[in-house]
């Protein structure tokens, strides 16, 4: 069997499914067969859409695009575990989580189409924050939002996604400290995918990321991020803790970035192909599908049906993205302030020829 990616070594992560798809430990995560199937379908759709986005970027239809192949279980397992009132603060690599949370993918991809910064979807309605490029800054937002939930007495939590690179930023530590001090109902969800552009995890941090939580006074859990059931269970438990008023949880989901950091990046400059080939043996989709087949929850017929459906869905999304017009120029001016000062009103009029 292939060896694990380097950054997975050390403390054994929580696992429900072994990389070969056999169950280890308690397999019942509390989901019905329909829900389990739905999770696999999300994973298949997400991967197909991710690959389509990379193709669209190559065709000049999208600006720089950050792929997430290999991280489907980490995103879909965690996003599925959240309740409707919970609020997600994403990075720029959470398209799969956005799909699960009900964000319209065409609106989400407006960001990468270059027609809007945050995506025109409504963050309040979808409970999915705008795409965030500065790393680690959104973790603080999630903690602030969670502090507000606690003040309101709302039984909900926030979840911030971030990568291993974010854990070397000051904002990660400020967010974790605030979360601990205020016992905020927040989940700090790290997708440790091994690389922050060209720098491997061991150059970001000398310790294990999940262990940081202890210093901030709350639990940290290391989970196999390519095991969708383990991610689901871990996130569910963290959410239950948050709902119960027991404060934050740091989850380190070990996964692997199969592709480049973004379409502008050439990973051939810093990592060897053997590493990627070895990591493919830990593919989260193959693992989950293999288990679902082994217990008879799906069969070839269902998978074949899905393939056709997913193909049409992705093509519809693709058409929707391409059909998006450039936004009207007044958009530049319309939302800088609630009530634009005179100087902006004048500049708007100048651009519009008014």
């Amino acid at each position, binding site marked *: 069997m292939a060896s694990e990616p380097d950054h997975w070594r050390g403390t054994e992560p929580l696992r429900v499914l072994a990389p070969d798809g056999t169950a280890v430990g308690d397999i019942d995560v509390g989901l019905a067969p329909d829900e389990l199937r739905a999770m696999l379908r999300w994973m298949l759709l997400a991967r197909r859409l991710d690959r389509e986005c990379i193709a669209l970027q190559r065709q000049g239809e999208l600006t720089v695009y950050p792929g997430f192949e290999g991280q489907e279980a980490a995103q879909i397992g965690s996003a599925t575990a959240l309740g409707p009132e919970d609020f997600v603060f994403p990075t720029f690599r959470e398209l799969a989580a956005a799909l699960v949370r009900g964000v319209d993918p065409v609106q989400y991809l407006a960001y990468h189409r270059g027609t809007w910064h945050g995506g025109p979807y409504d963050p309040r309605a979808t409970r999915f924050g705008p795409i965030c490029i500065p790393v680690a800054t959104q973790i603080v937002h999630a903690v602030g939002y969670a502090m*507000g939930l606690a003040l309101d007495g709302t039984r909900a939590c926030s979840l911030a996604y971030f990568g291993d690179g974010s854990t070397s930023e000051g904002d990660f530590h400020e967010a974790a400290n605030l979360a601990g001090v205020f016992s905020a109902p927040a989940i700090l969800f790290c997708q440790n995918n091994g690389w922050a552009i060209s720098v491997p995890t061991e150059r970001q941090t000398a310790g294990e990321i999940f262990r940081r939580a202890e210093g901030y006074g709350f639990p940290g859990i290391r989970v196999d991020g390519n095991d969708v059931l383990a991610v689901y269970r871990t996130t569910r438990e963290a959410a239950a803790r948050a709902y119960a008023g027991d404060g934050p949880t740091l989850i380190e989901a070990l996964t692997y970035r199969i592709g480049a950091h973004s379409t502008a990046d050439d990973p051939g400059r810093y990592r060897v192909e053997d590493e990627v080939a070895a990591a493919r043996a830990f593919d989260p989709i193959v693992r989950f599908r293999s288990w679902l087949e082994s217990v008879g929850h799906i069969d070839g017929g269902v998978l074949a049906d899905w393939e056709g459906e997913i193909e049409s869905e992705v093509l519809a999304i693709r058409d929707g993205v391409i059909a998006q017009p450039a936004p009207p120029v007044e958009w530049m001016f319309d*939302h800088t302030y609630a009530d634009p000062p*005179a100087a902006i009103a004048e500049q708007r009029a100048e651009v519009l020829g008014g």
Partner: protein
Amino acid sequence: MVGALNAALRDALREDDRVLVFGEDVGRSGGVFRVTDGLQAEFGDRRVFDTPISEAGIAGAAVGLAFGGWRSVVEMQFDAFSYPALEQIVDHVAKMRERTRGRIDMPITIRMPAFGGIKGKEHHGESPETFYVHTAGLKVVAPSNPGDAYRLLRLAIADPDPVIVLEPKARYWARQDADLTTGGFGIGEGALVRDGDAATVFTYGAMVARCLDAASVLADEGLETRVVDLRSLSPLDTPLIARCVRETGRAVVVHEAPKTLGLGAEVTARIVEEAFEFLEAPVRRVTGYDVPYPPAALEHRYLPSVERIADAVREVVAY
């Protein structure tokens, strides 16, 4: 002025239960300048609370709270202590409304004791206004007296957009019988604080008092100098600036911040754009120097003095 700011916070907390006050030492201690004194006792530690020392955390938490409909009034303990929070302020506080197509308000007020003149240590006498004025999406105000301080802070808290409130620490102990009601001017409006026809001095913050002192000296020489308190640094009151230059023909801009790309550069540019043909002399700037804010023993040589201000007015009048 401390009392006026305290009253503004108290009234805002009373009127709107979504208003929160937090920052370093603002709770039990009441703030190092006592601006938040007694608020925690009155409103409880859920609405008025101390945070860890964490400026990016404070600003970033305010962003997250705004997603939940909270109205945060945060304190950066000193001007230069806001720099660790610059990324949160510039990248998120200022831009979230635009990024979300107006769906998420950022009604965040960031208060900070600003400017020099109190013999403070390094990092306790900065004039950070250019960083914030240059950032689209923010408003920036600087009161010079207790009445304006009350009104500007109430306006800042009520504003759906983020407002940076630069409180001139050298004026914290200034006393004035002030009208603590919410009627009157809005953000974006300057004030003509002394009339005159020889020249107009444009200034703000602690320098307003010094420019008034200079105007008294000049009046003794027969030069009636107009003094404008800009009060709102972003947006600037361009119509008032233009009107005063049209009426006096001569202008001096005074501030503590370093000269290069200080607010004086912007005021001068607007004068040239709006009232060039009325100018009877080049615009003069009296500012701090393009050096780090000096130690206490030298700050009187750095800050614009009554003499430097008066000289600049004499020069533009004699031109």
